[in-house]
């Protein structure tokens, strides 16, 4: 009896192994003519997924659908080969390995988390495959002179710098100070690469403006109790809290902050969970997120369509593309106001394929990792000519940013904007060129965190 069962189970095992071998064997299918395979690597499962990775993936997929519906680029259809990174670098690497060696893709696009982007970038460099980083923002990704890594997305330093710049140039006035150096700032961040790279530049800029840094602490985004952090914040009594977190940790923070009576005058988030105030509001109540600032590339629904031009490749107004994208997103996923990560997924994929791929085909006649790379190096799109609003030009080899760090492959023309969630609407408050309204400082009295 027992033995019977065992034989039964063993049979299963054997089948499994055989099928496994079979799949590996049959996986490299011959690609038909005029097709470009594109690897889409995104954490569709695991903790990163809800924090924006899934939204990014959806944006990417819609971009490719819209392209193919318009006949693709230069007659080539785009075949997305999606792989789930499962929020784990280890898995991401195995999937990358598979995309490159089995599917033979010339380019891998995607990646939400910097912890995944860095090893993947390194892997692609080794294997001479283009890596187009869509959302991950850690400076490290483009700080290594990699020839095959490109990123339209701004870098984490732009986040960390941007918010403080906003305070130092504009915000301090609203706080009733005559000079930035009077502002008392607290920096808190999750201890992952994302939080670290953002908060580094927070620190740098805070020093630049001579503000008073009253607290600076990291926490694990998996933490189940951060009340101690909040108590420290209360003791430090800052005017401004600069917070970089994923999602559950932000909810936990806001809930405990409210309950432990934390008071502050300005609360500024740096992307991820903060980019989705509706979801936060569901968890902690609308009044808590009301008046919250966040920095991110503007979700396309916020962009002033009048300022956007015609799409360089298809010649249709970018405004229309955005509407179509939002419409498809709503039809497919039932969300009228998708988080900014969706925009990034859509806009960056769209731009990269229409601009770089088309040039590669026209100029070099074929799509390989190297033609893509060369084409990308020549990219030069002015402000307002992409669905993300900003222009695109990748930093050449050897170029250094203002901190003297290399940033080869980094888009030099992209920037995040500071916007405030006020009375259920987003208002862009920084930089002035993009501003759609005045910031509300300090926090509205209805907000329990308000002083």
């Amino acid at each position: 009896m027992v033995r019977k069962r065992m034989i039964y189970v063993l049979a299963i095992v054997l089948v499994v192994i055989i099928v496994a071998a079979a799949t590996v064997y049959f996986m490299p299918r011959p690609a038909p003519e005029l097709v470009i395979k594109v690897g889409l690597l995104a954490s569709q499962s695991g903790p990163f997924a809800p924090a924006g990775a899934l939204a990014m993936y959806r944006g990417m997929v819609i971009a490719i659908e819209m392209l193919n519906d318009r006949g693709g680029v230069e007659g080539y259809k785009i075949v997305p080969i999606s792989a789930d990174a499962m929020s784990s670098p280890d898995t991401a690497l195995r999937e990358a390995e598979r995309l490159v060696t089995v599917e033979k893709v010339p380019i891998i696009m995607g990646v939400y988390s910097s912890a995944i982007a860095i090893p993947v970038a390194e892997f692609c460099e080794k294997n001479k495959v283009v890596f187009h980083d869509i959302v991950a923002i850690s400076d490290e990704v483009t700080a290594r002179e990699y020839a095959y890594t490109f990123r339209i997305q701004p870098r984490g330093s732009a986040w960390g710098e941007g918010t403080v710049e906003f305070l130092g140039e504009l915000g301090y006035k609203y706080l009733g100070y005559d000079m930035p150096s009077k502002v008392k700032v607290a920096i808190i961040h999750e201890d992952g690469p994302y939080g670290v790279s953002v908060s580094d530049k927070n620190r740098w800029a805070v020093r630049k403006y001579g503000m008073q840094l009253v607290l600076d602490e990291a926490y694990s985004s998996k933490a189940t109790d951060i009340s101690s952090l909040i108590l420290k914040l209360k003791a430090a009594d800052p005017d401004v809290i600069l917070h970089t977190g994923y999602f559950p940790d932000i909810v936990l923070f806001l809930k405990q902050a409210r309950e432990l009576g934390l008071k502050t005058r300005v609360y500024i988030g740096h992307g991820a969970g903060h980019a989705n105030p509706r979801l936060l509001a569901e968890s902690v109540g609308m009044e808590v997120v009301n008046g919250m600032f966040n920095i991110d590339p503007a979700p396309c629904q916020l962009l002033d369509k009048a300022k956007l031009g015609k799409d360089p490749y298809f010649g249709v107004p970018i405004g229309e593309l955005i509407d179509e994208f939002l419409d498809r997103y709503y039809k497919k996923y039932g969300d009228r106001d998708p988080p900014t990560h969706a925009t990034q997924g859509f806009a960056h994929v769209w731009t990269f394929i229409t601009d770089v791929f088309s040039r590669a085909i026209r100029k070099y006649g074929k799509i390989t990792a190297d033609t893509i790379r060369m084409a990308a190096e020549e990219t030069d799109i002015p402000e307002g000519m992409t669905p993300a609003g900003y222009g695109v030009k990748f930093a050449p080899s050897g170029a250094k940013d203002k901190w003297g760090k290399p940033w080869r492959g980094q888009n030099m023309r992209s920037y995040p904007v500071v916007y405030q969630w006020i009375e259920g609407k987003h208002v862009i408050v920084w930089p002035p060129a993009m501003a759609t309204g005045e910031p509300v400082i300090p926090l509205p009295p209805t907000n329990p965190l308000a002083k």
Partner: protein
Amino acid sequence: MIIEAFINGLLFGGVCALVALGLNLLFGVVRIVNLAHGEIIMLGMYGVFWIYSWSKNMFLAGLVTVSSLIPFMVLIQKAVFNKLLKAPGINQLIATGGMILALSYGAEIVWGVDYRSIPLTFPIAQIHGVFISISRLIAFAIAMSCALLLYLFLYKTYPGMAIRAMVQDSEEAELLGIKPEKMYVLAVGITGLLAGIAAICLTLIYSIHPHVGGEFTLFAFLIVVLGGLGSLSGSVVGAFIISEVFTISSILVGLEWAYVITLIFFILILILKPYGLMGRGE
């Protein structure tokens, strides 16, 4: 600040204790180290969430969740635990480890990966400038009353005593005519009950996602082992010790190192008292 931290630690400890108690009861009676206890609570949290958002009635939500978790646990007992009773400990760990994957990713398939949480907001309580988190206070109160009821049940009722007999010496208990199978079902049922209640408390504090369970399991284990496997009072004490060590050390050295310190503290204690603070040994 330290005082406030201490109080928070205390409240946090209450929540941890609730998670740990179920885990420990299961071990004490069924002799199963259930790594997936956190995941079961996670299921409960989803239950609470859905029923609440449908009915807007916390009590109903809690009631339904608890009453559905109990049979669920019994089911697991019949399907998995019973088959592992004779197996070596490591096999149990693997099977229950497998349950972690199965449950959390099963939840991911069913409910998706989005974070959910109940938009319940509590008034802010303040005594002499010391703020107290109401949600945690509630959780703490529930936890403590559960511990008390459990105590009364175990020490004042016949089935309770039978369970204790099982915990102390299962062979002896059998000689006394106690049917192990029955006790298993009873204990597992209670575990389910506790898990359900823990789920209610946690939904008040944390946002819900398929992997939320794992975040408590480690703490729960530290507590159970520190207090002594099979010693319920130990679990409660252990919960407070661990949470205080964690909270205080995170005030002193920051949250990141707090984990390391807590774990090292745990290892030291266990080396000094090999069977936990209140453990009886083998």
